[in-house]
């Protein structure tokens, strides 16, 4: 099929010439200019985008919208018979910058039509601006996250020092001068000691949250069966005191940071041991493979969690409504979540008040 016939067939459909309508319907600017740079075609899209009406633009130089003549030379040099595609900086009627994704083709003249370059230009100004904005936001978010992390780290470090002074000297005072204090004085001093102790726990936990960065430190295959055995042995006193039964089914080997994995399951089991109902605590850990992930469940028969608290409990220092009497500063689950997210997994809890809770952890299976 000759090129000419091909062109004619496209234009003529069932005897109707569609080409003009098609060119005017497309969103993009379709334009053509001859070898001297004089505009010979200008569609409605071009009218909309550039703000110049067709009547005014026909016969005008292309440099009106493409002021940088090197662009014209550049695209001409690049272009043989093939289509040239690239990004061009154009101007609209008011002189505003337009970023155009341009595709162009050079054609020899035919009949009345001179040698020309046909160009379809898509206005990507808004898209590019949005992309740059998104990129800037992402960078900003990354920066402020890193800053926050190092702030938490530095703050908790620097706070430890004066707090250690308060705590130590309050205790020393208590030890040496308690006899000289009256009842009120002794009571006041007790509050100082108690406050310093609690704050010291909070700072330690804040350091924990800050220390686990978003990227796991040391990735290696980790047998979760070993991890759970270690955690059970670490918590053996607590498990015995609670009279709890901890049963662990066969668990997979995952890729992760071993000490961080240990921290996650220690925090989850500790959490289950702390939040117990009047029943004998029973904690069950099992795993299920779902396509390309492992889902590990830690089930307890504790008091369960209020619906409003299901997401909140993973925020640092936020504790569930029902756990005001439970010890701890409320960072264990936050640390677990940070670690699991760093490993590309998810963590959540499902629970009905009065019917225990199930903490789910997913990890990629690689």
């Amino acid at each position, binding site marked *: 099929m000759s090129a000419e016939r091909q062109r004619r067939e496209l234009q003529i459909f069932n005897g109707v010439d569609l080409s003009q309508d098609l060119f005017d319907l497309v969103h993009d600017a379709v334009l053509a200019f001859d070898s001297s740079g004089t505009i010979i075609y200008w569609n409605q899209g071009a009218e909309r985008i550039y703000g110049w009406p067709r009547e005014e633009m026909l016969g005008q130089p292309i440099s009106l919208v493409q002021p940088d003549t090197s662009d014209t030379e550049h695209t001409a040099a690049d272009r043989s018979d093939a289509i040239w595609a690239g990004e061009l900086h154009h101007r609209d009627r008011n002189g505003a910058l337009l970023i155009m994704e341009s595709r162009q083709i050079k054609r020899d003249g035919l009949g009345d039509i001179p040698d020309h370059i046909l160009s379809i230009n898509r206005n990507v100004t808004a898209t590019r601006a949005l992309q740059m904005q998104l990129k800037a936001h992402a960078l900003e978010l990354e920066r402020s996250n890193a800053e926050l992390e190092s702030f938490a780290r530095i703050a908790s470090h620097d706070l430890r*020092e004066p707090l250690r002074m308060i705590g130590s*000297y309050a205790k020393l005072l208590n030890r040496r001068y308690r006899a000289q204090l009256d009842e009120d004085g002794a009571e006041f001093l007790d509050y100082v000691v108690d406050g310093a102790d609690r704050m010291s726990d909070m700072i330690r936990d804040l350091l924990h949250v800050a220390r686990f960065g978003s990227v796991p430190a040391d990735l290696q295959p980790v047998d979760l069966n070993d991890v759970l055995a270690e955690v059970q042995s670490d918590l053996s006193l607590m498990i015995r005191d609670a009279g709890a039964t901890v049963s662990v089914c066969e668990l997979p080997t995952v890729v992760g940071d071993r000490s961080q994995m240990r921290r996650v399951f220690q925090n989850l089991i500790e959490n289950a041991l702390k939040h117990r109902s009047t029943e004998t605590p029973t904690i069950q850990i099992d795993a299920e493979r779902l396509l390309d992930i492992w889902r590990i469940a830690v089930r307890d028969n504790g008091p369960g969690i209020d619906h409003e608290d299901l997401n909140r409990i993973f925020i640092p220092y936020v504790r569930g409504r029902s756990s005001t009497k439970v010890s701890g500063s409320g960072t264990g689950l936050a640390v677990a979540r940070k670690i699991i997210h760093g490993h590309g997994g998810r963590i959540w809890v499902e629970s009905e008040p009065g019917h225990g809770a199930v903490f789910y952890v997913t990890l990629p299976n690689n």
Partner: protein
Amino acid sequence: MARETLRKRPFEILIVEDNPADVRLVREALTESGFNTQLTVVNDGTTAVEEIRKAGRSHRRPDLILLDLHIDQTSGLDVLTATKKDAGVGSIPIVMFSTSGEPDDIAASYRERANAYVQKPMDLDDFLNAVSQIESFWIATVLLPEE
């Protein structure tokens, strides 16, 4: 304890510490433990480097250096490096004694040949205990080179 009872002069500890409250706590711990010790206090890193160098030349070397990591001017780490490089005093055991538990701080200290790294415990009793353990270990348990 045999070694301790044989000693005629007190066991000299140089503490490099810019926090007077911590110096006092160390003093408390040393008083409680009952070893015959003498404590010399230096408050900043630059003075520490000078004092240690002078001590090396005067043949009155401290038996043990307790070195805080985060101190004014020359940092504890610089004091450590300078001391370990100095042939006159390089063999004096240096125990890093810092609030920091940062893995980087610990690693850097041992890389610069600290003899031990002890994190200052938050709790008073743990703190006093740590100091008296450091003391009894370096006085009564280990053997140090003769001067």
